């Protein structure tokens, strides 16, 4: 065993990168769920974002356009979900699962001609001398722009939900759509917009996978990240900053277990491999034990369809 090879600063820097896709997808899903809609199609929207972002970046040569393309395509896919559940009143759970399956298949189809191609590189944000500060420079100032953008988005979502009228309306719709409707808010319209925001964030997270984290296109590239994002929303009890903590915790354990294997720590790798999932489950159980749904902070109208005639 040789732990001296593990540099904590490098480890923290890696976990920040590893967490970006699930953090983006989770913060989008948080807004969707805050408005009272349960969209289980995160995995599907992520992978569509991954391939469409990849295709856009390769064809235009611009990673920035790639990220935009990923977000737009994720939002576009979520519109299908929005129409089915908000307009046609389909069951949200079933529709969300179908969206995941559809997204996986469609991404594979779009990606046929894009295997083995390298995307244009996404550079680091030039912080100049700041990046050379020992330890702190490595952790904070040597990342690609999306790492900062993702944290900024979490902050923005927190601020909007907590301090603005718009946030209040989204929360009202999610807590009691009947009351919000009685007050004159357009429940369906607000929910569709929240779903699209969720789709855009999932798409952005997917694009980060195929453009920065891996960076290439391969079928099934998300490999379950969307499901982890869904778990993190519950884990975070629908609070934005806790999404960040949850994503860092999951990303951190994923990265740490690989580093421990390289350092030849005498823990069987089976246990290390399963550790991120086990810890996620344990935390979820602790978070939800012995308390009611309201104490968990779940939106009261989560997963319930709304129609103005009722």
């Amino acid at each position, binding site marked *: 065993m040789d732990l001296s090879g593990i540099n904590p600063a490098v480890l923290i820097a890696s976990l920040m990168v590893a967490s970006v896709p699930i953090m983006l997808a989770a913060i989008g899903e948080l807004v969707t769920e805050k408005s009272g809609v349960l969209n289980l199609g995160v995995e599907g929207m992520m992978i569509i974002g991954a391939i469409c972002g990849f295709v856009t970046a390769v064809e235009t040569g611009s990673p920035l356009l790639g990220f935009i393309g990923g977000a737009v395509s994720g939002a576009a896919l979520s519109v299908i979900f929005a129409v089915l559940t908000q307009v046609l009143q389909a069951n949200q759970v079933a529709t969300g699962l179908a969206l995941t399956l559809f997204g996986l298949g469609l991404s594979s189809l779009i990606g046929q001609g894009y295997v083995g191609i390298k995307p244009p590189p996404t550079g680091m944000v030039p912080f100049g001398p700041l990046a050379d500060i020992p330890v702190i420079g490595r952790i904070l100032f040597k990342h690609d722009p999306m790492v900062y953008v993702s944290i900024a988005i979490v902050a923005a979502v927190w601020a909007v939900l907590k301090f603005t009228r718009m946030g209040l309306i989204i929360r009202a719709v999610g807590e009691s759509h009947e009351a919000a409707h009685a007050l004159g808010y357009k429940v369906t319209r607000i929910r569709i917009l929240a779903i699209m925001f969720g789709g855009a964030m999932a798409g952005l997270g997917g694009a980060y996978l195929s453009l920065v984290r891996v960076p290439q296109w391969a079928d099934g590239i998300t*490999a379950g990240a969307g499901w982890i994002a869904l778990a993190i929303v519950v884990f975070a009890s629908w609070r934005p900053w806790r999404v960040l903590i949850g994503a860092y915790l999951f990303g951190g354990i994923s990265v740490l277990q690989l580093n421990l294997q390289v350092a030849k720590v005498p823990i069987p790798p089976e246990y290390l491999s399963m550790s991120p999932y086990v810890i996620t489950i344990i935390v979820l159980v602790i978070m939800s034990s012995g308390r009611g749904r309201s104490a968990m902070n779940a939106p009261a109208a989560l997963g319930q369809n709304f129609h103005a005639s009722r």
Partner: protein
Amino acid sequence: MNRRTLMATAALGLGLAFSGGANAAGMDHVKACFVYVGPVGDGGYTYQHDQGRIAAQEHFGDKVETVFQENVPEGADTARVLTQMALGGCNIIFTTSFGFMDATQEVAAKFPNIKFEHATGFKRDTPNVSTYNARFYEGRAVQGTIAGMMTKSNKIGYIGSFPIPEVVMGINSYYLAAKKVNPDVDLSVIWAYTWFDPAKEADAAKAMIEQGVDVIAAHTDSTAPLAEAAKTPGVIGFGQASDMSAYKPTPRVTSIIDNWGPYYIARIGALLDGTYEQTDSWEGIKSGEVEIGEITGLPDDVKAAAEKVRDGIADGSYHPFTGPINKQDGSAWLAEGQDAPDGDLLSMDFYVEGIKGDLPK
């Protein structure tokens, strides 16, 4: 007779009816089916099997119909997919992953007239099951030679999928070859417990690079470790299963290419002309099933040394496992001058002496 046995009997009868034409007298038309563990677009292992399928299709034209199913999970679903294929009129079914082994035996026992070909396994419970594999460890010796000569930190890495003999012999071969040219070399192994998860494979490569590893071999199916290596100058890796030429000339400095086409053509051809027999095929560099991809971006002496190993294996003068070799715990495995018997390789469940860390059981 309950419903389940009724259905099983009906299924069996159907299978017999469809496959009744397959016998020693040869066939006019063969339907060849392929079961893949990953997507054909993985750019690696499954992609190469599919290239083999396409080669067979082109070789035989109208006489052969090929069908494949990708992304088949290793587990209960495997038997279901195989049964469906058997009922669907397949004459020969190629199951291309180690984890399909038991399901292949199970379904093959129910359909005695259909030929089953299982890749990288060792079970042939019924006469209609053949196994085929390639001596990938030969290619690992070439890579290990390069790794030992090219590493500056004396730390080399190997991303393993699952601790099965196939992978373990690759690790041992890689390490022994590296140690032969560089006695100070230290090997780190990461078990990913997946054949295909690009993000995890990239993270594994990243963890290695951050701890100073500068030559990374991967035994998983995607190109992600190479993409990760490309981000750090001076780190090199190898194409796995497929040439992965997008990463030429570096970080991909050479590759192991699985070339299944000739085998698939030979087996389907044998079925067509009636010479088909149960076999256990295990060929390597010599017969072309294992190809060493073009060596790029290396100094001339390293390239020459790697080619010498490759050519030595091809003409039989070099064996990646020649004694004296001890097991990790210090007990003797091969005596001076002794080449490893195939049986030992196919059931290999130990690291050789010098590799640190425990091999998961």
